[in-house]
């Protein structure tokens, strides 16, 4: 982006807008232009913005990353290697792979879908049936400058639509592979579950280490009355990558959301997850695990908006930090007037393995109703010396003992995941990474 990152984005848009999917749709062209204007006015956030107080995107602004017209894709061989490595065994039923920002049918296996379920790439869906997508893309204002930028440039992603009562038994694996440095990808996913529908979606990002690239993701989830969506995000971007993601959920009456955000990779990663209870009796669980070493920076901002009564939310985030890594957790819970009988509970526990690692954790409760149950707790600690000594006194190496304890700490989040293959994968990644985290 360099020098004036904002101008670069505007220039990128002038160069590529005509080539973006759905360019011939007037409503979409207008939406993109409005979004670009919003971005142009706002520019990138700075640390003076309360929401970005602890996360600077200066490095991203200076990085040499661009949107390219047709997605400058890296080699197929590299994509194949990465896709194989990221494959989840057994219980996953539908796999959509995106290579350097674009759908790669040759790496995908959509599988058999029940009638009432539609799973396609966003670009294909915009081509085939744009009217089905339109209601979920239209958005007057954007949560952040990155959201606006994404709306202007969104090029591909997944569109999952479940009609009333449709249940997808097997999880959907959306795999976004980045092999080409220097690229910016604006990924847009849309997941819609109509009344009583159910699905589990794993949104997975992986990339090659080395030079910078940037994934800017927006995922919109709609859970209609009594629908249930399980959403796992696994972020394993390459070491030089920038990753910004916004997951925006709208929940109708009695719907359930189970979200889990796992962040392992990238130089700088920011994930915003927001859900709004638009009907009574909604449930949401937001779990998360972040692991960072070296000079990694990982930021989670969550927001649970209890707008209606009898809503339940559970939030459980854990982080492990080594080296000079830095983590940010900000968990906002809003209980609106009238959202009585709300039951909200939030925890964030952090384990610092080194003197120079740092975490800023901030629970934010805004409660405007009086008959509610809300609590929160945040801790930042180190490995327990007594536990370490106990293990070592049984003949276990100091290094192994530390790993055991860190793994146990992280396991608390992992064991909540109901997709067995994902759980196993996470355990493997975790034990592999623990050696380098200190």
């Amino acid at each position, binding site marked *: 982006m360099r020098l004036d990152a904002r101008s670069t984005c505007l220039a990128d848009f002038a160069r590529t807008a005509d080539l973006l999917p759905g360019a011939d749709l007037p409503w979409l062209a207008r939406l993109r232009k409005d979004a670009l204007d919003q971005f142009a006015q706002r520019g990138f956030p700075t640390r003076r913005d309360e929401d970005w107080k602890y996360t600077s995107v200066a490095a991203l602004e200076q990085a040499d990353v661009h949107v390219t017209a047709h997605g400058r894709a890296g080699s197929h061989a590299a994509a194949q290697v990465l896709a194989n490595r990221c494959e989840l065994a057994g219980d996953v039923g539908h796999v959509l792979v995106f290579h350097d920002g674009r759908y790669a049918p040759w790496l995908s296996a959509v599988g058999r879908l029940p009638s009432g379920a539609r799973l396609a790439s966003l670009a294909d869906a915009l081509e085939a049936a744009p009217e089905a997508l339109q209601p979920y893309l239209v958005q007057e204002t954007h949560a952040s400058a990155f959201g606006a930028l994404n709306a202007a440039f969104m090029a591909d992603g997944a569109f999952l639509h479940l009609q009333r009562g449709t249940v997808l038994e097997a999880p959907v694996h959306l795999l976004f592979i980045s092999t080409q440095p220097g690229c910016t990808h604006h990924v847009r996913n849309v997941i819609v579950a109509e009344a009583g529908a159910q699905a589990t979606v794993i949104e997975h990002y992986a990339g090659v280490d080395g030079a910078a690239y940037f994934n800017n993701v927006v995922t919109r989830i709609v859970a209609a009355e009594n629908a249930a969506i399980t959403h796992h995000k696994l972020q394993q971007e390459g070491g030089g990558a920038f990753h910004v993601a916004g997951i925006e959920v709208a929940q109708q009456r009695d719907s359930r959301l189970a979200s889990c955000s796992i962040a392992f990779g990238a130089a700088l990663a920011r994930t915003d997850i927001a859900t709004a209870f638009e009907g009574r009796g909604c449930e949401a669980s937001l779990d998360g695990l972040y692991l960072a070493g070296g000079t990694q920076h990982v930021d989670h901002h969550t927001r649970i908006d209890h707008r209606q009564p009898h809503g339940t939310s559970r939030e459980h985030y854990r982080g492990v930090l080594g080296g000079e890594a830095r983590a940010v957790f900000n968990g906002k819970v809003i209980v609106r007037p009238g959202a009585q009988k709300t039951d909200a509970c939030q925890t964030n526990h952090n384990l610092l393995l080194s003197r120079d690692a740092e975490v800023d954790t901030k629970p934010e409760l805004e409660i405007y109703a009086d008959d509610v149950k809300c609590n929160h707790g945040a801790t930042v600690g180190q490995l327990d010396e007594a536990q370490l000594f*106990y293990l*070592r006194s*049984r*003949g276990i190496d100091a290094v*192994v003992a530390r790993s055991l*304890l860190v793994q*146990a700490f992280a396991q*608390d989040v992992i064991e909540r995941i109901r997709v067995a293959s994902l759980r196993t994968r996470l355990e493997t990644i975790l034990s592999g990474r623990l050696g380098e985290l200190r």
Partner: protein
Amino acid sequence: MLKITNLQASVDQTPILRGLNLTVNPGEVHAIMGPNGSGKSTLAQVLAGRDNYEVTGGTVLFEGRDLLPLAPEERARAGIFLGFQYPVEIPGVSNVHLLKTAVNNVRKHRGLPELDAMDFLKLIKNKMALMEMREELLYRSVNEGFSGGEKKRNEVLQMALLEPKLAILDETDSGLDIDALQVVAQGVNALRSPERSMILVTHYQRLLDYVVPDYVHVLSRGRIVRSAGKELALELEERGYGWLDDAAPAERTPVRAGAR
């Protein structure tokens, strides 16, 4: 087996052990008794290598080798076992995982092949039966939600699996009812052998009814002030520790203990 000479150790600059001497020969069982704060647990922890105790003087030889520079895990592999006064809870680490990792780590360092899951389970089920432990405790997190008695049995179970040369049991009897005490004592007695030595750190004489020691030592203010045979324990039970204050001058002449 173990030769402690003039051992001095402090915690946060406060001296706790002030010139302790003790010799333990193979096969011997030594009981160390004494009032609260006399340094009993400090001795146990120092021998196991806990690093928040600073050894400020003296030597400890284990099988002729200087023990003090060794890390806790090296001491464990060399054959030292500490049964904790307060066994540590480790949420998220299953008991069976700890036991298997520990046994195989120690076996590896003794040049023995690692046990596979089947052999390990067979071995552990035998030992658990001896300790009258429910199998379910294997799959729970280490000591988490265990009753006091279950925690202590778990310590003795670990000792039985690791087969140490020198076992130091730090108040393994504290807080146990008579039934649990008997089970723990039975586990300890089953491990007595002419090659294995034990140091029983205890506050109460009662344990010594079940595990009969060869020697009893009284620790006071960081030194052993009296050593005798098992009858000393009974005397302490009757007289309490109040007499130690009167006996303070005796501290000036270190008592040679455990010589055979």
